[in-house]
């Protein structure tokens, strides 16, 4: 029943056992255990294909915090299935590849696979979650796990930098997205995406509609490395190559695409959504392909090409969303919505050829020791299989037949040509720019694909520049890219199988109204006549070859953009400034003197609380309702006051601690008087334990020297003490007479029926507010470990042995 929820959790559960397996069975590469997870999940998810292709969806709901409407709801439709199959399918291949790529002698594989499984589970959670909050949780978990994976070789400075950069950018976007989600749920009154989609028509005029949309887009753009947030992706290439192949081409960066697709039924058809998504997409497409050409590192080149391809998919989704502007019955709408179909098709194609290409680059790096194209060349005869794979991958990326990239590229051109026919959102003026920019970007794409293949595999072999003697990769390392490359070819020859079983259901999930109206019908053809699209492709090839030939003569164009003015340096500069400023501010108030901190805290309390109470008029003391004070109570109050006043005059630490203890015990007596035995008990024990703790600590401290302070400071201290005392007393008195809210005790009166407990205090602690208690326990544990670590660290510094040594 909870199969889907379990599918998300299985990677996490397996991850728990990985460190043990890694340590207990050092003879076996840990990757073999991990491989079982994505492979099994892939088979499981593939078994859903017929169901989903039949137009059904699967939903399983696990209550989490039902009182807040937050439930762990897993929802499977065409769109989540397509992503989930990529995550588990490419995941299996990547794990298989990593077994040969990462040496079990040199690398700490335990960590690596825990992070990878964590990422896999988080990613599945993102695509399956129907609840916005759960989606956000998994979304950030992908950021965190990718941070850990990028920083896997943490001893390298660049790895740490790249990890920090990707984390800062994607998490910032994620927080924006959270705000967007909250706005969306405020508008619609639900956290469930299905319900939001079902009722969206009513909210398009809401004031929060556009802000929520933009914030959600911010999350999607940062995650999918769209311009101008793309700067993190090239630096993320510091991760091991299997990670780059997996996270930065096939899955994590697709999360933003997924999000945009998922929310197209919500926001699509709106002018803002159309313009923002398609323009950001097309700019990213152009800028990515333009910058890719200047790269000398193969992985950096692929990183920019990924950015550009993601831009392509994004722009297609933006264009496709315009279809929602029309009525379903309108013929045009189906015609325009084809862009969404093309986007999904390219999404799958990109994962296959880019995954293969990353693995190819990994092989080149692994077998020659460098990824610098200035040092590489002539590897064709030495690594024939890798060469073939590279050709298949890059020609598919360049959009040539007989590879799947050709098909989606043609559909991309078709969709962009249709933009020129649109006549709303004032697109008439700018529509023509879309196909032009796209065509230029495609030429540039073709050029960098040629660079990738020719500079690496043709030309002269220069063994003196390589760190290792080049040779073909071992078979195991080739299996995964061979499978991906076969898919590249297979999808070209049999695109309609993919189209019917995978793409159409996914299209249906993005454009639900169209499927309901049953107006969508599409088949993919490799040969579609001598039309504009084909001419454009021929033009791409022709101009591409010319540009590649003339590359040295127009490379000066990149010198126009000086490194100092790039977005990267803006990022670095603002980060540095932030660090420097915050350090200087922090140094000003963090003096390391406990006295200062106390003064800050107390003055803040006096100022803030007095202001708030005065503002709300809460200082109203009314003693008429108060119970009379009995003799015992009055007596104890006097004793307490005397004790408290004598603490400052205590001659030694011991006296001070004991007086403090007396105060605590007397307070416990009050609890007894007022019939709060639980509190009294706790107070007594706490007082005992903390007094003995104090004694233990202070027993060994040097003699107490009274601090000599200037009279001015002394006056300040007295003032602060008096002010705090007066304030707290006034608050205590006015709280009695101000009932701003109803008493909450009524809520707990039926504790016995609800929790079966007669002791209401424990019913609250263990049942009604068990979440608080649970987290308090965790806080306590952290505090305890903190003390332990601090003391052990200190003794370590002092040259003493740490425990166990």
């Amino acid at each position, binding site marked *: 029943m909870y199969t889907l929820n379990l599918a998300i959790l299985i990677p996490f559960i397996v991850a728990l056992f990985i460190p043990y397996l890694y340590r207990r069975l050092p003879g076996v590469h840990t990757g073999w255990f991990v491989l079982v997870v994505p492979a099994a999940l892939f088979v499981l998810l593939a078994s859903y294909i017929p169901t989903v292709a039949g137009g059904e969806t699967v939903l399983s709901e*696990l*209550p*989490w*915090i*039902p*009182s807040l409407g937050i439930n762990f709801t897993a929802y499977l439709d065409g769109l989540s299935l397509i992503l989930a199959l990529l995550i588990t399918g490419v995941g299996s291949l990547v794990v298989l590849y990593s077994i040969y790529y990462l040496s079990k002698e040199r690398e700490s594989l335990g960590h690596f696979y825990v992070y990878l499984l964590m990422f896999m589970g988080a990613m599945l959670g993102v695509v399956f979650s129907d609840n916005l909050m759960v989606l956000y949780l998994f979304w950030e978990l992908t950021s965190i796990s990718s941070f850990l994976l990028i920083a896997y070789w943490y001893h390298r400075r660049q790895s740490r930098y790249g990890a920090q950069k990707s984390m800062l950018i994607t998490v910032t976007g994620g927080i924006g997205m959270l705000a967007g989600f909250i706005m969306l749920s405020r508008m619609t009154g639900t956290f469930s995406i299905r319900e939001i989609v079902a009722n969206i028509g009513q909210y398009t005029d809401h004031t929060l509609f556009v802000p929520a949309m933009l914030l959600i887009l911010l999350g999607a753009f940062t995650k999918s490395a769209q311009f101008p947030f793309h700067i993190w992706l090239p630096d993320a290439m510091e991760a091991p190559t299997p990670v780059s192949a997996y996270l930065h081409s096939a899955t994590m960066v697709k999360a933003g695409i997924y999000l945009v697709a998922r929310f197209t039924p919500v926001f699509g058809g709106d002018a803002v959504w159309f313009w923002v998504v398609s323009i950001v997409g097309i700019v990213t497409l152009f800028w990515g392909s333009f910058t890719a050409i200047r790269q000398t590192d193969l992985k950096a080149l692929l990183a920019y090409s990924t950015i550009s391809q993601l831009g392509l998919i994004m722009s297609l989704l933006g264009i496709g969303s315009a279809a929602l502007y029309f009525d379903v019955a309108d013929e045009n709408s189906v015609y325009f919505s084809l862009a969404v179909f093309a986007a999904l098709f390219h999404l799958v194609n990109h994962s296959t050829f880019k995954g293969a290409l990353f693995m190819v680059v990994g092989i080149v790096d692994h077998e020659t020791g460098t990824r610098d194209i200035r040092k590489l060349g002539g590897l064709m005869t030495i690594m024939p299989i890798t060469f073939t794979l590279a050709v298949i991958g890059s020609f598919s990326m360049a959009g040539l037949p007989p590879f799947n990239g050709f098909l989606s590229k043609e559909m991309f051109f078709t969709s962009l040509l249709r933009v020129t026919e649109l006549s709303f959102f004032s697109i008439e003026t700018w529509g023509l720019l879309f196909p032009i920019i796209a065509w230029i970007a495609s030429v540039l794409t073709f050029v960098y694909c040629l660079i990738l293949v020719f500079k690496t595999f043709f030309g002269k072999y220069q063994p003196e520049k390589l760190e290792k003697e080049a040779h073909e990769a071992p078979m195991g390392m080739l299996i995964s890219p061979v499978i991906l490359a076969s898919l590249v070819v297979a999808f070209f020859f049999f695109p309609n199988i993919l189209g019917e079983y995978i793409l159409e259901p996914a299209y249906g999930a993005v454009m639900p109204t169209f499927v309901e109206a049953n107006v969508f019908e599409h088949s993919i053809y490799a040969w579609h006549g001598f039309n504009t699209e084909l001419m454009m492709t021929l033009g791409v090839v022709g101009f591409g070859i010319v540009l590649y030939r003339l590359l040295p003569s127009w490379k000066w164009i990149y010198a126009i953009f000086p490194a100092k003015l790039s977005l990267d340096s803006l990022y670095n500069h603002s980060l540095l400034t932030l660090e420097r400023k915050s350090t200087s501010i922090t140094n000003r108030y963090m003096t390391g003197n406990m006295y200062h901190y106390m003064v800050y805290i107390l003055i803040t309390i006096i100022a803030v609380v007095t202001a708030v109470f005065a503002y709300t008029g809460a200082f109203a003391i009314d003693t008429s309702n108060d119970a009379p004070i009995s003799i015992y109570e009055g007596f104890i109050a006097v004793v307490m006051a005397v004790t408290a006043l004598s603490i400052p005059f205590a001659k030694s630490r011991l006296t001070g601690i004991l007086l403090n203890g007396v105060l605590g015990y007397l307070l416990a007596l009050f609890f007894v008087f007022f019939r709060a*035995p*639980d509190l009294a*008990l*706790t107070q007594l*024990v*706490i007082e*005992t*334990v903390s007094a*003995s*703790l104090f004694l*233990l*600590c202070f*027993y*060994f401290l040097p003699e107490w020297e009274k601090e000599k302070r200037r009279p001015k400071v002394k006056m300040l201290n007295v003032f602060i003490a008096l002010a705090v005392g007066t304030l707290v007393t006034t608050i205590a008195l006015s709280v009695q007479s101000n009932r701003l809210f109803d008493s909450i005790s009524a809520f707990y009166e039926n504790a016995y029926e609800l*929790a*079966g*407990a*007669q*002791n209401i*205090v*424990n019913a609250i*602690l*263990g*049942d009604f507010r*068990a*979440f608080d*208690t*649970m987290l308090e*326990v*965790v806080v*306590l*544990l952290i*505090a*305890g*470990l903190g*003390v*332990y670590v601090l*003391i*052990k660290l*200190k*003794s370590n510094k002092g040259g003493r042995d740490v425990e166990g040594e």
Partner: protein
Amino acid sequence: MKANDVILQTVSKVAVFIILTYGVHLFLAGHYEPGGGFVGGLVLASAFVLLLLSFDSDTVKRGMPIDFKMLAATGAFLSVGTGLAATAFGVPFLSQTEVHATLPILGEIPLASVVLFEAGVAFAVIGTVVTIILSISEDV
């Protein structure tokens, strides 16, 4: 701390058992009467503190070879775990339940899942308090 504490040590030997018993009682009584995991744990911890004060930490360690850091971690795990366990039965996170069992001599007694949760709290309290005190006293 090395000092001649014969009286303290003798009294402690007896008192510790009384305190421990009382701590367990408080822990179990929590559902219906004053007590519960937190107080129970604190009382149990204070028994260990008393031992530490009257004997030195090595003696205590030999008498009770418990890793209190592990105890605290186990407690936190237990609390979170009972919360998670609830979800396995299809009810919200941290839901507690209660069954009434009939035993031969004792008659009908209630068994509440909250006991497990409270046990986690108690373990975490004992573990943390004793860890702190042990670290401070060993540091000297």
